[in-house]
C-alpha cells in the first residue's frame, strides 16, 4: 500500500505538536533544577488551557489569553509551593493532588466553553523567508509562541550556565543545606522556581487549546503533562536536549496521526498508544544510562527544613 504522507507537512506540523510539551517541560526543568519535583504539570497545563481559552474567547485577544494561562498555571502552582515549601508536605502526593484538582476544576470552569471556537492566532510574517520552498512552510510559517518556546530554551540554557541567578538556582537544587548556610533563601528561591514552572505549564496548556486543537474539551491534555515530565528525564535536565526530545516526540505524534488518517492497516488504538509506549521505552533507555541519571539535581524531591 502506498502511503502518501508529505514530508513537508509532517515537519511543519511537528513544531506545532511539540510546542505544548516543550513549554511545560522547560518550566518543569527549572523547577527540578531548584530541587523540587512537581508532578502536577498535567493539572497546571489543563488549568492553563481553560484560562487561556476562556480569556481569549471573552476578550478576542490571544495575547491576553496566553497571559491569563501563565497566570492561571502560576496560581495553581502557588498552592503546591505553599504546601511543599511552607507546610513541608510530601512532593509526590501534593503534585498528584494538583493534577486531580486541576482536572476537576478546569472541567468546572470550562462547562460553558465547550464547542466554541477561539480567535485565530496569527502567523508571524518573515517576508521572503516564509515563501522559500520547503524551508518556508517547515520553519517560517508558524505563530509567535513556537518561536517564543525556542527563545525560552536558549534563555534558560544561558541563565543556568552563565549567570549568577542560574548558579544560585543550581546550588539550591544540588545541596540545599550548603546553600542555606551560604545565606541563600532556599524556600524563597524554590517558590519562585515553582511559579515559573507553573506559568510555563499554563502557556503549554493554552497552546493546546488555542492553537494545536483549537477548542476546549474536558481532560484535553490527555497525558501531555506526564510526557513533559518524562521529557525532563530524557533531556537529562539540559534545555537543548529537552528541545530535541520534544521535537522527536512531536514527530512521533504527528506521524501516528498521519498514519491513522492514511488508513494504515494497523488498529487505530495501537497507533494512539504509540506515543505513550515510546515515551516509556525512551525513559528506560535513559535511566539505564548511569551518566544521564547522575545529572539529576541531588536534592530533587527532598524536603528542606532549616532546623538549627
Amino acid at each position, binding site marked *: 500500500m502506498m502511503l502518501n504522507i508529505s514530508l513537508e507537512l509532517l515537519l511543519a506540523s511537528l513544531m506545532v505538536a511539540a510546542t505544548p510539551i516543550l513549554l511545560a517541560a522547560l518550566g518543569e526543568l527549572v523547577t527540578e533544577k531548584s530541587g523540587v519535583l512537581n*508532578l502536577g504539570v498535567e493539572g497546571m497545563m489543563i488549568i492553563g488551557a481553560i484560562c487561556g481559552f476562556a480569556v481569549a474567547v471573552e476578550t478576542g485577544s490571544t495575547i491576553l489569553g496566553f497571559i491569563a494561562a501563565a497566570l492561571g498555571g502560576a496560581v495553581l502552582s502557588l*498552592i503546591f509551593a*505553599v*504546601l511543599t515549601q511552607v*507546610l*513541608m*508536605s*510530601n512532593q*509526590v*502526593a*501534593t503534585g*498528584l*493532588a494538583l493534577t*486531580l*484538582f*486541576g*482536572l*476537576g*476544576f*478546569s*472541567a*468546572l470552569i470550562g*462547562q460553558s466553553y465547550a464547542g466554541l471556537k477561539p480567535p485565530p492566532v496569527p502567523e508571524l510574517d518573515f517576508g521572503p523567508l516564509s515563501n522559500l520552498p520547503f524551508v518556508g512552510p517547515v520553519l517560517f510559517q508558524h505563530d509567535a509562541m513556537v518561536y517564543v518556546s525556542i527563545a525560552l530554551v536558549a534563555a534558560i540554557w544561558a541563565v543556568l550556565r552563565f549567570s549568577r541567578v542560574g548558579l544560585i538556582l543550581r546550588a539550591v537544587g544540588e545541596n540545599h543545606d550548603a546553600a542555606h548556610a551560604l545565606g541563600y533563601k532556599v524556600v524563597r528561591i524554590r517558590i519562585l522556581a515553582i511559579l515559573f514552572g507553573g506559568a510555563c505549564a499554563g502557556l503549554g496548556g493554552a497552546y493546546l487549546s488555542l492553537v494545536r486543537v483549537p477548542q476546549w474539551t*474536558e481532560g484535553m491534555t*490527555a*497525558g501531555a503533562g*506526564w*510526557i513533559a*515530565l*518524562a521529557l525532563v*528525564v530524557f533531556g537529562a535536565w539540559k534545555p537543548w536536549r529537552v528541545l530535541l526530545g520534544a521535537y522527536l516526540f512531536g514527530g512521533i505524534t504527528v506521524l501516528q496521526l498521519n498514519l491513522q488518517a492514511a488508513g494504515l492497516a494497523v*488498529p487505530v*488504538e*495501537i497507533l*494512539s*498508544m504509540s506515543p*505513550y*509506549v515510546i*515515551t*516509556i521505552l525512551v*525513559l*528506560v533507555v535513559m*535511566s*539505564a544510562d548511569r551518566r544521564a*541519571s547522575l545529572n539529576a539535581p541531588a536534592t530533587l524531591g527532598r524536603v528542606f*527544613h532549616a*532546623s*538549627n
Partner: protein
Amino acid sequence: MIRLERRPSPSRMWTALTPVMAVLATMIAGGIMFAALGKDPVEAIRTIFWDPLFNEQFAAYSRPQLLVKAGPLILIAIGLSLGFRAGVWNIGAEGQYIIGAICGAAVGLALYPLDSPIVFPLMVLAGALGGWAWAMIPAILKTRFNTNEILVSLLLVYVAEQLLASMALGLLRNPEGGGFPGSRNLQQYDAAANLELFAGTGVHWGVVTAFIAVIFAYVLLSRHLLGFQIRVAGSAPRAARFAGVNPAALVVICLGISGALAGLAGMFEVAGPAGQITIDFNSNYGFTAIIVAFLGRLNPIGILLAGILMALTYIGGELAQFMLGVPAAAIQAFQGMLLFFLLAVDVLSNFRLRLGKPEAA
C-alpha cells in the same frame, strides 16, 4: 513570628485528628465553591453528606450504593498504601484496574455459555493476574533499569485505556449486540455474574474481598516481618538496608500486591455493577483511591473509613447533580480539594508550632 519545630516522632493525637480537620475544611471551602456557582452551600453540603444516608426518599437506594462504591476504592487503596508506605509510588492503579477487568471479563466471555461453578473463580484469578502483570511492567523496569515507576505506571494508564477501547470495539464485542460497541452483559450470565450477596446491602464479592484485604493488610503491617520491612523502608531507607531489606524485592512485592488488588477491583466491577466492558467502563476509581489512601493515613482501618466517606461524596455528588444541578466536575474538584487540605494540615502531626523568635544556636 510562628515557627515550626520538628517533632521527634509524629503526634498520635494529631495523626487521628488531622483527617477530620481536613474534611471540615473541605466542607467550608466546598461550600464557598458551591455558593460561587449560585447554589445554597448549606443545602449542597447536606445533599452530599447527609441525604444519601438519612433522607427518607433516597436512602433506600443510596445506602446499598455506599458499599458498592466503597468496595473498589478500599480494595485499590489498601494495595496502594503498602507501596506508599515503602516509598514505592504506584499511581497507575487505574490502568491495572482496567487490565484486571479486561482479563476477568475475557475469561468469562470465553467460557460463555458454560454453566459451571468454576467460571467465577477463574475470572477472579484472571483479574488478579491481569492487574499483577500490568503492575509488573513498572516493577521490572524499576528494578532492572532504575526507571522511574511513577511515570511508567501513569503512562501505562493511557495505554490501558486504548486497549480497553480496542477490546470493546473488537475482540470482546458482543456478537449479538447488533454492532454496538461493548461486550455481552455478564450480569445476565449467571455463572459469571458478581451479584449482590445479601439483598438490600450492596455487598458483593468485591466488597467481601475489600474487607478481607483490610484485615490482611492490618495483620501484615503489625505482625509480619514483611510489614515491618515495608514500614522501615519508607521511614528510614538507610536503616532498612542495614536491617537486611532487599529494596528490589520490596518494589516487586508492593507493585505486585497493589496491581493484583486493583485488577481484582476491576474484575468485580465489570462482572457486577458495570456488567460489561465498554469504552468508558473505567470511572477514575484508580485515581480517587490515591486520595482514599492518604485520607486513611495509609492505615488499613483508616482506609476503610476513608473509602466509605469518599463513596459518600460520589453518591452525594450524583444526588446533588440531580437535585440541585451541581455539575459533576464540581465533585471532582471537591475531592481534589480534600487531598490539598489533608496534606496541608499534616504539618501539625509532624511539627510543633512555636510562637516567638528562635533562640540563637
